[in-house]
């Protein structure tokens, strides 16, 4: 088997229960290098939970995660921290460290997780902030930044760790409409540079232009997967069609 055949990441038969409620049920996703897979589905479908199971921010009850073909044993702390460094995560509400400047937000994990020395970490952080167009704002604190700028800082923070894959959980949902574009532009850039990504989003039209595959999820189950065109216009499943119709109504086709 050649290395290209091994997916960057596979999540196999992930199940997560909260009490009696099964929030994710035997969901499997596998992503090849450079792929962008987009998870769509109604609110409460389990998209966030599934994404967080991938880097064990939420511990799945069943299933396993393989990074470049190697199974992760989450009980081994070293494995776990390694996995999380290799998997960048972008949250809906940014989760920037409120007490640190943009620059320090990007730099802190380089210094304290990767152990990179101060000057190198600083330079790297500056480069990542430049890449998301925030060089002028690097000394500002999160509370001094707009939502779009915060999300771009969080992308820079994740990128600085040299992740093998990025998980983006509704990266634009918390943004005012006029700020969405700047974040989508950054994501488009990542895509163009070959970053491997899984993203959950309601930005269907934007996603359909870039995604390799759509994954439709509902009630914890992956109902259907396929190319964006197929899911949006010729979905096999009735529920998928209904959802896509509704989403077009709400969000329109422009982004």
């Amino acid at each position, binding site marked *: 088997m050649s290395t290209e055949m091994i997916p960057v990441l596979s999540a196999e038969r992930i199940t997560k229960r909260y009490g009696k409620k099964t929030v994710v049920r035997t969901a499997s996703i596998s992503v090849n290098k450079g792929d962008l897979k987009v998870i769509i589905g109604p609110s409460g479908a389990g998209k966030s939970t599934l994404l967080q199971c991938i*880097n064990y*921010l939420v511990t799945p009850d069943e299933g396993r995660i393989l990074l470049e073909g190697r199974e992760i044993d989450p009980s081994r*702390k070293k494995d776990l*921290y*390694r996995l*999380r*460094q290799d*998997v*960048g*995560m972008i*949250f809906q*509400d*940014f*989760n*920037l*460290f*409120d*007490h640190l400047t943009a620059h320090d937000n990007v730099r*802190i*994990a380089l210094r*304290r*997780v990767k152990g990179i020395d101060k000057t190198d970490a600083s330079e790297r952080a500056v480069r990542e902030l430049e890449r998301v167009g925030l060089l002028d704002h690097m000394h*500002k*604190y*999160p*509370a*001094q930044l707009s939502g779009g700028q915060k999300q771009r800082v*969080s992308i820079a*923070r*994740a990128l600085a*760790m040299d992740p093998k894959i990025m998980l983006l959980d509704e990266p634009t949902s918390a943004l005012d409409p006029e700020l969405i574009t700047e974040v989508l532009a950054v994501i488009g850039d990542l895509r163009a540079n070959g970053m491997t990504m899984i993203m959950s989003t309601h930005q269907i039209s934007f996603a359909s232009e870039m995604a390799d595959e759509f994954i439709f999820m509902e009630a914890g189950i992956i109902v259907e997967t396929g190319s964006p065109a197929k899911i949006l216009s010729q979905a096999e499943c009735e529920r998928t069609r209904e959802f896509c119709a509704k989403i077009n109504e709400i969000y329109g086709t422009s982004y």
Partner: protein
Amino acid sequence: MIESLTILAGALPYLLKGSVVTIGVVFGAMSLGLLFGIALAVGQVYGAIWLKRLIGLYVWFFRGVPLLVLLFLFYFGLFSLLNINLTAFTVAVIVLGLISAAYQSQIFRGAIVSLPDGQLKAARALGMSDATAIVLIILPQALRLAIPAWSNEYSIVLKDSAVAYALGVTEIMARAHFVASRTYQHLPLYFTAGVIFLILTYAGTKALRLLEERVHIPGYSQ
């Protein structure tokens, strides 16, 4: 009146030396309470269930038993039984510190749980261990939030420190009392002691207010 003033003037250096003792007790107790209180708070928020219970028990005990009882219990009881010969001053610092740790832990716990979940999540997502995340991300924010309540705790410990005389720590109040017993100028002396306490309260809370301003996160509303 004149007589009172001359007596007061004569006694002032002696009283002020007492305030050095008071400051020592309070500084020691607050420091011990800070360090131990942080540890307790972290344990209570992030620890295993048995640890949470144990800390709950600790807090319950030290908040529930009167200060004087604890002072005697430690001074005449525990340390004597263990044959550890500590000075009254040290025991006062330790006991006031352990009590303050119980109160401070609740201040810090409140501050920690008031932080959004996302902070710890984001730190973990970057590959930080929980310990690193707590030290680098959680505590710096929680401690900032805790300053106003901490300042309140300072004035409480300051006032409580007067009870240390029960062990023979000659702080401000004890000294005022000694001089009054000799001179029968109780009122002016207690008044002066009160003023010294007020000044110490003011200076401490003022310093903490300045600290709060200094470490305030730009753009963050109060």
